[in-house]
């Protein structure tokens, strides 16, 4: 950035400033050390612009994955989900009717926990959970019913589907293939994204279904199958968000996302596929979450963008620059973990801080949190409107986002980006030394590291070292809470009564199907599935397609696979 003579002059000038004006101020306030830091070119000594920063949309991608963001997306209301907002409640009929009423043109499906975890609605494990955080799918019939929402509005080859489904992702994919077959849509025209990021499920989100090696084999099956038959289908949406919300620091999440991604790419490589082909086509990156550490979040986004090209080139010999980034909606943000129940309306302000960080990290100013997040399950329309308007104000009134990566060249932000990158490489080295991400997850190491960070954070909150307004500071009796009274546990259009009845209705439907279907066909299909599961080389997706068509239940399929694969075992040692 500067030649040696310049640096020497700066060093000298800094010394004079410290001994002169700064010293006088410190003496006047009677303190030893300034609580404020000042950065200079000395903090970014070996900074090489083209190597470290460059231009948006070209390697090293520090400033952005594309030459520019998609025009007008931040203000249109769909910045967060091209397939429509993440939604689903009660029975599939309830969600189908709501989506049809909303004239939705894409499916972004929230499944309830029994479905995500591989249980039928009448399984004892499912009590109290059916239709709560999303819809219940007990058989292919439910899936068919859900997609009736689009009949006469949009056909499967003209829409996109997003399924927040991990351990059971291939079963959902099989249902989509079976549905397309029924409707006469060739599978190569299907577009969609299963989440399928099983490592972070085991570590943080908790909906894993099978032992880890079998779980990874399922992900391999997805990669291999879509690579061969479904050119427009994503295989995986790699995600750090849940690890972050669970407590991971910025450096940890950066390292864990990379380490997990390496493990997933390796699955395709081991199956004989070319990473320069399958990574750009079938891999996406969701989000690395966030925090209130404003500049750190900007640095995280910039550092993680420029780490992936190095990984692809050095570890996988990649020569295709398009494989050096994954399509991603990741942007700096504060994350829902930052929102507080106390004086919840303040969460709007926190969200806006994230929106500004988003804009300063080479994205649109996306305010990604809703203020009523900690008040119950689901967001109110009012909260969604506030967040959307906040994004619009940042973009249209404050004109944020007009300059891409405006902090590039800032001595502070460049040095912070370098520092974060180095911390992440150091953590990745540890993971390499223990045999890679699968081992780091299997042994519980990654999960324990995250829990420890969460505990450190909590201790800082309790000692007051970390301030949370309205929680551990400024809580006196003269403070007032101006949060509007919101008592809904679900978004406004959701019918609370229907949601309460979902369990009963779903179980009745399930029992009816078990009686009506051809139970011999189900039995043979499940036997075939288990046989295929025992052969590690076999791709299970065609077998799953055949199985779902018999209306085998979700739990029957999961249990058949658990029998062969072994169950997921939650970690209990902290």
């Amino acid at each position: 950035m500067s030649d040696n003579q310049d640096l020497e002059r700066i060093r000298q000038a800094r010394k004079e400033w410290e001994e002169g004006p700064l010293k006088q101020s410190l003496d006047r306030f009677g303190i030893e050390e300034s609580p404020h830091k000042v950065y200079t070119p000395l903090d970014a000594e070996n900074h090489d612009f083209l190597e470290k920063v460059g231009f948006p949309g070209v390697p090293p991608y520090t400033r952005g994955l594309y030459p520019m963001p998609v025009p007008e997306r931040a203000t249109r209301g769909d910045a967060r989900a091209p397939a429509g907002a993440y939604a689903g409640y009660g029975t599939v009929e309830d969600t189908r009717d709501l989506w049809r009423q909303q004239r939705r043109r894409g499916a972004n499906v929230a499944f309830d926990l029994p479905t995500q975890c591989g249980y039928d609605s009448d399984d004892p494990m499912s009590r109290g959970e059916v239709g709560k955080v999303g819809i219940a799918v007990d058989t292919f019939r439910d899936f068919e019913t859900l997609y009736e929402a689009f009949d006469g509005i949009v056909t499967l080859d003209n829409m996109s589907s997003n399924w927040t489904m991990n351990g059971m992702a291939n079963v959902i994919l099989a249902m989509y293939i079976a549905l397309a077959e029924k409707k006469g849509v060739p599978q190569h025209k299907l577009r969609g994204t299963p989440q399928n990021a099983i490592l972070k499920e085991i570590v943080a989100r908790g909906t894993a279904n099978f032992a880890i090696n079998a779980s990874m084999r399922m992900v391999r099956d997805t990669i291999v199958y879509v690579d061969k038959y479904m050119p427009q289908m994503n295989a995986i949406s790699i995600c750090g968000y849940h690890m972050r919300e669970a407590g991971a620091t910025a450096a940890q999440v950066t390292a864990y996302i990379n380490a997990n991604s390496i493990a997933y790419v390796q699955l395709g490589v081991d199956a004989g596929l070319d990473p320069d082909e399958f990574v750009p086509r079938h891999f996406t990156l969701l989000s690395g979450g966030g925090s209130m550490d404003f500049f750190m979040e900007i640095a995280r986004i910039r550092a993680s963008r420029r780490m992936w090209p190095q990984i692809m080139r050095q570890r996988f010999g990649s020569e295709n620059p398009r494989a050096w980034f994954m399509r991603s909606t990741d942007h700096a943000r504060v994350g829902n973990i930052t929102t507080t129940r106390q004086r919840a309306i303040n969460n709007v302000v926190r969200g806006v801080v994230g929106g500004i960080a988003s804009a300063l990290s080479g994205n649109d100013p996306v305010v990604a949190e809703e203020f009523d997040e900690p008040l119950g399950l689901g967001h109110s329309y009012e909260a969604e409107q506030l967040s959307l308007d906040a994004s619009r104000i940042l973009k249209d009134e404050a004109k944020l986002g007009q300059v891409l990566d405006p902090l590039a060249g800032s001595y502070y932000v460049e040095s912070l980006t370098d520092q974060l990158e180095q911390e992440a490489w150091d953590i990745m080295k540890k993971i390499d030394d223990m045999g890679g991400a699968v081992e780091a997850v299997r042994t519980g190491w990654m999960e324990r590291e995250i829990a420890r960070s969460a505990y450190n954070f909590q201790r800082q909150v309790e000692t007051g070292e970390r301030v949370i307004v309205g929680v551990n500071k400024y809580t006196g009796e003269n403070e007032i809470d101006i949060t509007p009274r919101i008592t809904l546990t679900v978004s406004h259009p959701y019918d609370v009564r229907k949601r309460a009845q979902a369990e009963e209705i779903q179980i009745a439907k399930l029992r009816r199907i078990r009686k009506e279907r051809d139970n011999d066909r189900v039995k043979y299909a499940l036997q075939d599935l288990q046989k295929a599961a025992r052969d590690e080389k076999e791709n299970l997706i065609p077998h799953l397609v055949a199985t779902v068509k018999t209306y085998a239940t979700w739990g029957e399929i999961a249990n058949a696979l658990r029998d062969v694969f072994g169950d997921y075992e939650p970690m209990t040692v902290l």
Partner: protein
Amino acid sequence: MADKRRVKVLLAKAGLDGHDRGVKVLALGLRDEGFEVIYTGLRQTPEKIAHAAIQEDADVVGMSCLSGAHGYIFPKVVELMRENGAENVLIIGGGVIPEEDVPVLKDQGIREVFLPGTPIRTIAEYIRDNVRPGE
């Protein structure tokens, strides 16, 4: 106090909910506060929780739920504990739970419900003030 054993707290993650940051932080925190802590891990049914509590002779059962299933799981554990003659065990809960549900849970025998933002020491003090440790 050598003659008195440490208060034993069983922390359980109820139902299929995977949000376990709070319960893990609490486990580490209560351990540092001097309690003996057992963490069950995810995916516990009311039956498993009650069984583990009785098996381990726990003085306190703390359940965490952020999925909305607290209305079924928490009271069910109370019921199972009572059926097994373990009514002396202090049963508490926490998580993202709508405030209007709290009095309902308390009526059903959940002695206290801790909502997001509660400091660990508040929970530790509550336990110390309310527990009746076994012999």
